[in-house]
């Protein structure tokens, strides 16, 4: 065990545990990091939602004049970028961070300081991206003219505006002048690094940190989905990193990768982007599928139907997800053989997806269903994801996709799977695991109001988009004329969007109220099945008072219940005593526990990326290159200092 005696004489003294706000800056505790991810992600969710509400005002009627063209392009780009990279991915990280060690019986992740680093890189990357509103410039394409002779768009338009997908050469130096797309390409690069580091951490954790007896096929489904997502991140992020470097070099160093006037290849960007971009969408949905697979059994009072099938289907989706990227490019001029191949490959993904849906149905079937809020959101997930999944299958019918692609029909598809799917699943998880975080229950009444408002709002918003797309409304379109006849349904869509916003407000009220005055949850409030409920609520700092020893799937359930001859559960005579015993050893661990010490280095290393980012963009200005060098030096020295810092400083006994 590590105790090297003398404390390291780093530039700063090694921080101690629990010293007020610096606690959060220097923490390496996976739960605190998860909480920071969660609040940050939710903050960006609200920002991304506001961007959507603004652009829905512009599109509510024909020939809208709420936004200028430049502002509209900025709003739809930032809405997509924010929701994908700054909300769904980080809130997935929030769940992975907080829950994964608890689900596998560990005290923390494999590399706590690296875990903190992932968070700080993410938050500084997000700040960097959004600082484009303040500092970014965006002019017309070279040779073009902005209204009124302006050289730059308004502040609302001066942010990343090439679409979240940044198709080249439109998002290259010739056609997107100014700095906003440098903020975009560099900002995304920084965010990608954060997720890559996290993925290494989570894979190492799942492989090496499982409790005794926690064989892989005894892990909760959410732990499995975390693992698959980590592998998807691991293999897809490098490709977008290469693509983003190529764009950044085109914009900053004069390389010619995508400059079609000089031999560059416009379609190459799309291949590289979608090689990442398609696995990315499974990264977005699999965590929510994992959450739903946890929640449905608990509130059906039965095990997950077909656990191995659900696990393998998830892995299959991940694996197959690498083979379908060009289905985003069916109209791009790729050969008919390629179109056929990718169409067929895309169809195959429907199979494991269907397997999961049917197994979820099988879980509910012949269960005893309690309509708690997490259950409502999980049921909503299944119903809405099916719609999105089916519209996805219609895209795989390639010639049909030639009509559907780049229209609102696609927007409908991905919002059903991402909103009806991922976001509903995320809310299910937030309501379900709220007691672990706070020791209290969220209000069921407000929860149900939230659910119904959101369900109705979501369908009003995205349902009509199927129709609008098939009627010819294309994507990313600043306005549409009266003659296109889109006005009625667009108004419905806009109203629906505001209903969604109202439902989010209800949720926020619920969260704040319940955190302060919610009913105390006590131990195991849901009578659940998995081991994160075998420890007290809120989760103690050391997670498990005693290292768990797992005897099978749904271990916690089997400590409380036996099966009778019919296969129905019978509560064990000593179940209450067992629960009390677990509570006691959770609150008062019998043996000393050593937790890793906090560290400044992840924060400083994360901060250095800000300097690097600004330094690259402004390297031609007098102060830019020195700033860049400073950032690199800061990064290197913080990493070196980190590697010199021992894992633990002295003995920090948390429990005497």
């Amino acid at each position, binding site marked *: 065990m590590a105790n*090297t005696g003398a404390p390291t004489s780093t530039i700063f003294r090694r921080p101690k545990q629990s010293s007020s706000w610096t606690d959060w800056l220097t923490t390496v505790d996976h739960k605190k990091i998860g909480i920071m991810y969660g609040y940050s992600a939710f903050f960006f969710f609200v920002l991304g939602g506001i961007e959507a509400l603004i652009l829905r005002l512009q599109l509510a009627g024909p020939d809208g004049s709420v936004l200028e063209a430049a502002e509209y392009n900025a709003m739809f780009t930032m809405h997509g970028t924010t929701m994908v990279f700054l909300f769904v991915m980080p809130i997935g990280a929030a769940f992975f961070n907080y829950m994964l060690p608890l689900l596998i019986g560990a005290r923390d*992740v494999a590399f706590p300081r690296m875990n903190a680093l992932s968070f700080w890189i993410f938050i500084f990357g997000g700040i960097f991206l959004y600082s484009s509103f303040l500092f970014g410039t965006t002019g017309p394409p070279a040779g073009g003219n902005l209204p009124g002779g302006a050289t730059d768009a308004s502040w609302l338009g001066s942010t990343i505006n090439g679409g979240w997908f940044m198709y080249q050469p439109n998002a290259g130096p010739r056609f997107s002048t100014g700095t906003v797309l440098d903020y975009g390409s560099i900002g995304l690069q920084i965010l990608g690094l954060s997720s890559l580091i996290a993925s290494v951490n989570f894979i*190492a954790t799942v492989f*090496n*940190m499982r409790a005794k007896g926690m064989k892989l096929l005894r892990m909760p489904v959410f732990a499995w989905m975390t693992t698959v997502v980590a592998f998807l991140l*691991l293999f897809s992020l490098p490709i977008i990193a290469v693509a983003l470097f*190529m764009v950044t070099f085109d914009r900053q*160093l004069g390389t010619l990768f995508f400059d079609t006037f000089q031999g560059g290849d416009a379609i190459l960007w799309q291949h590289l982007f979608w090689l990442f971009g398609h696995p990315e969408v499974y990264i977005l949905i699999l965590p929510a599928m994992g959450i739903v697979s946890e929640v449905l059994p608990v509130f059906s009072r039965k095990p997950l139907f077909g656990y191995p099938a659900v696990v393998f289907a998830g892995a299959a989706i991940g694996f197959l997800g690498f083979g379908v990227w060009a289905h985003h490019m069916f109209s791009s001029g790729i050969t008919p053989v390629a179109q056929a191949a990718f169409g067929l490959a895309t169809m195959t993904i429907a199979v494991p997806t269907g397997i999961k849906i049917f197994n979820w149905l099988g879980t509910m079937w012949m269960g005893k269903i309690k309509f708690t809020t997490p259950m409502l959101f999980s049921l909503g997930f299944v119903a809405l994801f099916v719609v999105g999944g089916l519209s996805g299958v219609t895209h795989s019918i390639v010639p049909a996709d030639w009509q559907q692609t780049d229209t609102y029909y696609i927007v409908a598809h991905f919002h059903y799977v991402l909103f009806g799917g991922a976001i509903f699943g995320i809310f299910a998880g937030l309501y379900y695991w709220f007691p672990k975080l706070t020791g209290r229950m969220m209000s069921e009444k407000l929860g149900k109001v939230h659910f119904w408002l959101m369900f109705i709002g979501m369908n009003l918003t995205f349902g009509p988009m199927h129709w609008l797309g098939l009627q010819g409304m294309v994507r990313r379109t600043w306005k549409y004329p009266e003659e296109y006849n889109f006005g009625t349904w667009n108004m419905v869509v806009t109203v629906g969007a505001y209903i969604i916003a109202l439902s989010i407000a209800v949720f926020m009220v619920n969260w704040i109220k319940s955190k302060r005055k919610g009913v105390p949850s006590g131990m195991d409030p849901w009578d659940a099945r998995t081991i994160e409920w075998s420890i007290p609520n809120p989760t103690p700092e050391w997670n498990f008072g005693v290292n768990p020893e797992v005897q099978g799937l749904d271990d916690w359930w089997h400590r409380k219940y036996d099966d009778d001859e019919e296969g129905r559960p019978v509560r064990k005579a000593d179940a209450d005593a067992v629960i009390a015993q677990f509570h006691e050893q959770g609150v008062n661990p019998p043996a000393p526990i050593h937790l890793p010490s906090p560290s400044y280095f992840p924060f400083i290393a994360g901060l250095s990326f800000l300097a690097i980012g600004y330094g690259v963009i402004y390297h031609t200005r007098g102060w830019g290159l020195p700033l860049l060098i400073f950032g690199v030096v800061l990064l290197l020295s913080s990493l070196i200092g980190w590697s010199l810092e021992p894992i633990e400083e002295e003995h920090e006994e948390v429990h005497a």
Partner: protein
Amino acid sequence: MSDIAHDEQVHETTGIETRKLAMWIFLSSEFMFFGALISNYLLFKGRPGFPEPYPSEVFDIPFTSVSSFVLLMSSLTMVLADHALHKDDQRSTRTWLVATALLGMVFLAGQVFEFAGFVTEEVPMKLSTNPAASAFFTLTGFHGMHVLVGVIMLLTLVGVSFRKGKLSTATGLNLESVALYWHFVDIIWIVIFTIVYLIK
């Protein structure tokens, strides 16, 4: 031993030391990174109609062979450093680590010299000459940066060994993981050298 919270026993469910495991996981990601860069080069290298020169026209294969050999030798010294650590011979470990870092730096110097030559030729080849050149410099440039990061890690290990008196398993940076990384960087170079320089 990784830096997790623990009580008396630390388990490694797979039996592989966690930091080495993490390095393997990270390197599998790096395969994709270099795979994309190499594919990119392969896409552009043969495209007709670009302004001259194409990368294959300016290569000095004998020179690059020598620097490739230098990098290969550095993998050998890395193995020797690892071996010395297992025998707990701190002095030899340091020596071989320094040797590896030096050989890496010689390789890098060779790259810089080579690139300087390309841009100062009569018909220069720069980043912006044509997409094939862009792809070439990006690929080899990123490889060079990986070598540089490796050299920094090696020197850090040497520094750690001096500060602590010996290289131990208490700190995060770990010789076996760095060795893995170094060998990976070498293997990638072999692939690049073959595909980019040798194969027409």
